[in-house]
């Protein structure tokens, strides 16, 4: 979250804040922050009807800056990371009447000015932590199951976002000729490859400091072995460099709630701090 300006009076706690949400979690913070009867100023698009001299009514989309007084709670869409804020117009505008209803759609990198009559301590703390840069250091988790189900997730302090879900149908091993004896190995290879591609695509080692790989039985270990072989074969430098950031843990399944399980496990937390600490030590050296 980028803080553009802040004017809060110490006397009564009222004032305004000008922010730009940069990450998905910032939009979520704003959702928790905004309350009914707050005044929101944003740049938005509105359909404006203009009547021509002959009486024809033309409707054009006009970009304008509106100030609305919020009615009700905003609506948060997690998949697209947008907020819909609705309310009535309170500022004089050449295009919109006073008291007319309007709905803002706030997405990433949209500047918003929030004016409250009294800023709560909790709200201010939230803004402060959201603007704090070191929080962007995040954790990634991969959970996989022998059956061919896996999830790749990015974990921030407040949210777990599933970046990719891989589902492959892996046949059970059978010796019958009709079943196809090499089929299982082939499908397992396909599954590992799909998951590897998802890992490479979504995990950015600039921000991610630790990658947890979890699964029941030997699944995570086997996949990791395959990943290193593949990385060496394709000479994927970024992956090989950050080899020490990968931690193999045990999870109960490859479903998404297994991710919540592994991050709450105290033993795992110890391992995470260990990897972060060891990396910092390496930097010092």
């Amino acid at each position, binding site marked *: 979250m980028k803080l553009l300006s802040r004017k809060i009076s110490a006397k009564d706690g009222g004032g305004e804040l000008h922010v730009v949400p940069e990450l998905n979690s910032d939009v979520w913070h704003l959702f928790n922050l905004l309350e009914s009867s707050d005044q929101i100023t944003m740049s938005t698009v509105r359909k404006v009807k203009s009547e021509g001299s002959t009486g024809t009514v033309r409707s054009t989309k006009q970009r304008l800056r509106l100030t609305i007084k919020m009615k009700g709670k905003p609506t948060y869409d997690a998949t697209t990371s947008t907020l819909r804020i609705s309310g009535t117009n309170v500022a004089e505008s050449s295009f919109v009447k006073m008291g007319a209803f309007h709905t803002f759609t706030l997405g990433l990198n949209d500047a918003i000015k929030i004016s409250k009559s009294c800023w709560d301590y909790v709200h201010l703390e939230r803004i402060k932590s959201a603007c704090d840069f070191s929080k962007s250091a995040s954790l990634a988790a991969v959970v996989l199951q*022998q059956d061919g189900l896996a999830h790749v997730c990015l974990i921030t302090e407040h949210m777990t976002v599933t970046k990719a879900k891989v589902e492959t149908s892996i046949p059970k091993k059978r010796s*019958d000729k*009709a079943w*196809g004896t090499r089929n299982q190995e082939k499908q397992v290879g396909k599954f590992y490859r799909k998951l590897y591609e998802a890992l490479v695509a979504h995990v950015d080692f600039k921000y991610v400091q630790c990658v947890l790989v979890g699964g029941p039985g030997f699944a995570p270990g086997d996949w990791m072995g395959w990943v290193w072989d593949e990385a060496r074969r394709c000479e994927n430098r970024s992956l090989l460099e950050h080899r020490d950031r990968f931690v193999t843990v045990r999870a109960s399944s490859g479903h998404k709630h297994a991710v919540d399980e592994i991050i709450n496990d105290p033993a795992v937390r110890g391992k995470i701090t260990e990897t972060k600490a060891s990396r910092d030590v390496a930097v010092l050296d």
Partner: protein
Amino acid sequence: LRNARYAVPNPSFTPTYADNIKAITLPPANPVTSGPITICVSGHIDHGKTTLVQTMIKMLDGRKVVLDSGLAEQSRSCTTDVAVVTCKTPSDRTLTILDTPGHEGYSLQLLPALFECDVGVFVVSCKRGEFEDCWGGAGRTHLLSMIRAGVARIVVAVNKCDVGEWEVVGRRVVEFLEKEGVQATACGVSGLNGDNLQNLIKSIEQNCGVRKGKGNKKSFRATISSVSLTGRRVNMQCKVVRGNLTVGETVSVAPAGVCGTVKEVHVGDEAFSAGTVGPGDNVTISVVNMDGERVFSGDVLVRSGDLRTNVFSRRRLVAKVEVKGKTLIKGTELTLVMNALSVSCVVAHVLDGDKRMLRSETRGRCTLVLKRPVCLETYEACKKLGRFLLLDGARIAAVGLVEELL
């Protein structure tokens, strides 16, 4: 002391079981006129399940089959996944054996096998020290998983009887099972040497329940436990739950909705290009002209006509649930497991009693919302497609019956 029923190794043992049902009709060259049995061999790690199955196959069929064929399994000498083998019993019944892994980490592979079987074979070793080790902890959990998955009849195979006293162990396990309300028989065997395997097989056959009716009028349902694509064919290993299917008919997979024509039916290594499968058959159905990429294990095979008239994929259901472990709070994310299907679900609303939670060791009704649509039926309509388990992590949290589909 309750009367423990256990088979004594007696050469003059004469089985008395009900007559078999004709379930699969084949061309005259291979007359098979007996009810098929599916058994699931499970138990603690290293008690001899895989060895027992290998010896059974050698004895019944004369062939040597390697069950742990995967690289990981051979290098670690531990079963990682369920192996399926088909053979014939001396009384000419098709026997499908599912050899399951014993490690706790592979319980996700074990549960589909438990749902699929008719008779469960619980292998426990009577070697000194091994029984006590397992009975204290993981062994009993294994048995409880079997019971909760719905295996009504269990045959306890007390293994390694050449190096231990099987009667004591057999009696203890059977007593435990009877307390839990399950019919059980115990039999002492030796997986390595092949002692007393005939009696084990006879006890299995005796315990296999008689199937009611031939299911001609009921609509066809088969649960798919594994899918393999070879060339243009989609091979699906399925267990027929009810109804009959003839080779040449058009079938569809629910919930994906893809359809194709049945070309062949394989029972073990034999392929039949004409014939009918009935309830209880554990076969591989080979289909052509079907988009195999959209078929997953856990889906249900139905007739194409059926799919057009009924809706099969649901995401919301009302279920009667019996909580086995800790209290379930409304909103917890659990895994719903039924017949090779495992899907993430959330307890959306609790309908009876305290609306916030389902208390431990009680029964209650609740609404479950699933992450993706699956094929389910109410318990009254179809028992096999209406009974499920709710897992919390790797532990069984509750047993449920589908009451209503929303």
